[in-house]
């Protein structure tokens, strides 16, 4: 029977403090039963370790070393205490404060604002001109009782309240000119009257 004696040496060495062979794993017991080299190694190992354990009596300290040691110790640990207290009290305080600030920043930064709508309303009330990007989606035209929605087309000219809406792109030129004429005549008549 072939036996990997060299490989078994370390395993046997780690198992050597078992009290009896019966407590060894089954495969090791089989190896010891069949391999005389491993068996001899194990027996010598047990003998050597027994000698080592028999020599286990160690020196004893008769007197405590504390009286001599007490004189050699440095001054009381005041600095260590201060540092430790500082660490224990202030580090949690700083951590909580930092966390609160972080939360505050996050909530304030993400809160929805009505500023843009306010700008539109204020601008309408003050009768100011708009850029195309700020143009409102609906507004009153002449008749204030009803709102007329308009679809917004790309708009290039500034618009002021009181002027005509973007009829320029919606009506033919002839109709527009007729409409302007009619309005002019109506104003003229009203002026005469």
């Amino acid at each position: 029977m072939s036996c990997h004696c060299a490989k078994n040496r370390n395993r046997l060495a780690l198992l050597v403090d078992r009290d009896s062979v019966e407590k060894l794993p089954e495969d090791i017991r089989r190896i010891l039963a069949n391999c005389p080299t491993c068996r001899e190694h194990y027996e010598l190992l047990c003998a050597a370790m027994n000698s080592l354990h028999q020599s286990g009596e160690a020196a004893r300290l008769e007197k405590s070393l504390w009286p001599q040691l007490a004189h050699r110790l440095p001054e009381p640990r005041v600095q260590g205490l201060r540092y430790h207290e500082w660490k224990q009290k202030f580090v949690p305080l700083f951590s909580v404060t930092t966390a609160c600030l972080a939360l505050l920043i996050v909530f304030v930064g993400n809160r929805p604002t009505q500023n843009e709508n306010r700008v539109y309303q204020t601008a309408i009330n003050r009768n100011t001109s708009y850029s195309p990007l700020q143009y409102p989606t609906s507004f009153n035209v002449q008749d204030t009782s009803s709102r007329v929605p308009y679809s917004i087309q790309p708009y290039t000219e500034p618009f002021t309240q009181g002027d005509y809406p973007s009829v320029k792109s919606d009506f033919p030129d002839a109709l527009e000119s007729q409409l302007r004429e009619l309005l002019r005549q109506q104003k003229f008549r009203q002026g005469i009257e």
Partner: protein
Amino acid sequence: MKTEQAVNQDFVKGDGTVHRPHVSDARLVEEVRGGDRDAFRDLVLRYEKKLYRVIHRFVHNDALAEDLVQETFIRIYENLDQFDVSRRFGPWLFQIGVNLTLDYLRKKKRRGTTSLFSEISSEKSLDPGAEDPREKQDVNEEVRRVLQEIPEKYRAVLVLRDLEHFTSAEVAAIMKRKEATIRWRLAEARNRFKELWTERVKEANESPVEKDGE
């Protein structure tokens, strides 16, 4: 402020010092950090005997072992702020003590002054013409000489594990190595000790025959 229960658990020793065996190491360390020297005395009383025994295994000299024990405790006291209370105090103490001892032996060896170990090992213990050394010296001495022939990293593991009966995990913590490394070193140390011990036994058995043959 001590609770009544804590006071009841304390007891006064013969020299008048109050000994508190039920207080944990971590609690004592906290008290020492707070400037309480008595707490440090309790730690010293708790560990000095075992530490002395371990260090004596390496240096085999009473006065030197006492010095090294004191030096270890002074270092502990000075570096107590660095100790993590969530870890065990014992392995940390023995780690510092063993490292201090091994450093001392290395320095002594480097300086050219032969250490106690090398003095012993340089002696020819088994001179064929001489009598069996074990007739003069006990087994302890023989074991000590054999141990000196084992390299330091294996010897330290063998002493801590087989002579001082620390567990493999504790030895790993003391030596700052992985437990698997410690187990491998232990196996190697035992095998080396066995080889050297068997060789000595053979030589000792052969020497009386040679003497009779003369």
